[in-house]
């Protein structure tokens, strides 16, 4: 399937879902700052990659798919969508890893430190390249997983 953006897809979302994500994002950012303040940047940094929003997205997707599916497809369709979202998020994690490594190298005092804005820009580009690049090679990986692991019955 070709990648495409479609504004009409926003019709399927509900404003409550966006509010929940806003609140969750705000709370995680506050919590991460407090953890870094009390326990230091090494522990606090771990929580910069804490999967706080992903579970909320999965729950939202599950509800949406169950609402739209007929009685016969309820559950199975949500599970398929959940697997798709998890596979995409795994690709996003590769981007997140690249973002962190570039930022670390760019800001590390031991090396040649980059200007802060340049470090953030380079890290963001690294995220996009690895996340979308990782996504583009997911198909052979998922085929491999499909062969190794049996599918759960619907």
């Amino acid at each position, binding site marked *: 399937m070709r*990648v495409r953006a*479609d504004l009409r*897809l*926003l019709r399927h979302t509900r404003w409550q879902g*966006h509010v929940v994500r*806003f609140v*969750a*994002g*705000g*709370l995680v*950012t*506050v919590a*991460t*700052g407090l953890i*870094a303040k009390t326990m230091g*940047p*090494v*522990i*606090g*940094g*771990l929580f*910069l*990659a*804490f*999967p*706080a*929003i992903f*579970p909320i*997205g*999965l*729950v939202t*997707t*599950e509800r949406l798919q169950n609402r739209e599916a007929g009685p016969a497809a309820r*559950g199975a369709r*949500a599970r398929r969508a*959940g*697997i798709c*979202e*998890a*596979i*995409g998020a795994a*690709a*996003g*994690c*590769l*981007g*997140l890893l690249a*973002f*962190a*490594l570039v930022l670390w190298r760019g*800001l590390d*005092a031991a090396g040649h430190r980059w200007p802060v804005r340049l470090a*953030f820009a380079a890290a963001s580009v690294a995220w996009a390249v690895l*996340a*979308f690049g990782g996504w583009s090679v997911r198909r052979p990986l998922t085929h491999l*997983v499909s062969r190794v*692991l*049996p*599918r*759960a019955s619907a």
Partner: protein
Amino acid sequence: MTGAPELLLRFLVGGALVSSFSLLGDLWKPKTFAGTFAAAPSVALATMSLTIGREGPSNAALAARSMAVGALAFFLYTNAVALLIRRAGVRPGTAAWKCGAVWAAAAVMGWATLLRVT
């Protein structure tokens, strides 16, 4: 971080960035591609942009190094979620919460083996 205004600022910036990335993800098809935005560095951008000015780039570099370990833990977590749904037929929401221990265990192991000694 001390005052309530700063906590409120963190909350607003973090919430805005996270919901923006999630809204961006909602725009795309197929679903696997949209899922990449679920692991966008929204919390990191919000946290670091607010702290780097006061605490300096050295602290941010340390945090970024730890974030790389957290990202590996996140990668294992997303794969665990996909496997649990696929193999055990668990509901996606349930799988996401149940696999939280995978992220925690991987992050602790990563901290103990890669970060604690330095």
